[in-house]
């Protein structure tokens, strides 16, 4: 299990690195699709079928949007010369990475080893969902009943984003 997931994650890392260094924007977008669809397989292996279904749909829509944008504009990657600004950015990135690695090492002490998670908060959900909500799917029960306001907020965000996209893409803009 852990080996399979490691191989998939390594595949995702390779895809991500290729996406960042591709010369063609279209291949960069497709390489980002590698990462997203590998995530689907990871979710299936981790026994999360709901997440896998949602991720398939969302990743497909994202890819369509990105491909449409790239085809509508330009496919060529910028020619970046190594100048002082770029060196500064790269060193800044490495400083951030070092800081995050420090915090990661601190935080992993508190994590259980992989596969030995203990249900604390969710044990109540697991025991009571079927009786209280009538839902056979525990994730649905949590999402739409115990944490219904979360889902309401999520729907609000989607609606706001749709209005935002429509506003930005208006044909006529104010002069």
């Amino acid at each position, binding site marked *: *299990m852990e080996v399979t*997931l*490691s191989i998939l*994650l390594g595949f995702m*890392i390779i895809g*991500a*690195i290729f996406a*960042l260094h591709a010369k063609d*924007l279209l291949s960069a977008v497709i390489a*980002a699709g590698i*990462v*997203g669809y590998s*995530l689907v397989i*990871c*979710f299936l292996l*981790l*026994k*999360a*079928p*709901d*997440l896998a279904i*949602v991720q398939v749909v969302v990743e497909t*829509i994202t890819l369509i*949007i*990105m491909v449409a*944008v790239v085809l509508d*504009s*330009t496919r060529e*990657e*910028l020619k970046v010369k190594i100048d002082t600004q770029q060196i500064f950015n*790269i060193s800044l*990135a490495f400083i*951030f*990475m070092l800081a*995050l*690695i420090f915090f990661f090492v601190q935080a992993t002490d508190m*994590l259980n*080893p*992989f*596969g030995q*998670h203990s*249900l604390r908060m*969710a044990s109540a959900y*697991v025991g009571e969902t*079927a009786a209280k909500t009538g839902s*056979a799917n*525990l*994730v649905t029960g*949590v*999402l739409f009943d115990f*944490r219904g306001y*979360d889902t309401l907020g*999520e729907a609000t*965000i*989607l609606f*706001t984003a*749709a209005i*935002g*996209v429509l506003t*930005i893409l208006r044909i006529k803009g104010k002069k």
Partner: protein
Amino acid sequence: MIVYILCFVLFLVGLYGVITRRNLVKIVISLSIMEFSIFIFLALIGYIDGGIAPIITGQDINPTYVDPLPQAMVLTAIVIGLATTAMLMAIAIRLYRKYGTFDIREIKNLKG
């Protein structure tokens, strides 16, 4: 433990892309890569060895379910990720139509 580390490496790849790339499309791609790494990390935390998917079928005797709470949270986060990506891409195409480039250095002088 190795899976957590690989997840973290994926996050760092995304962070590196956000800071160093100059193409708007690649910055959006890097942001979504960071999102993906967080999703997989949360799903990994909730996994239990020998657990089954959190769906009650009534056929398993004394079942162990994987944690449904991180899965519900990630489900919300995936949809919000779609909203942010769509919004960022809309802004990117709008800027391209105005400036004719995706280069963020060219777009720096935003003067009304």
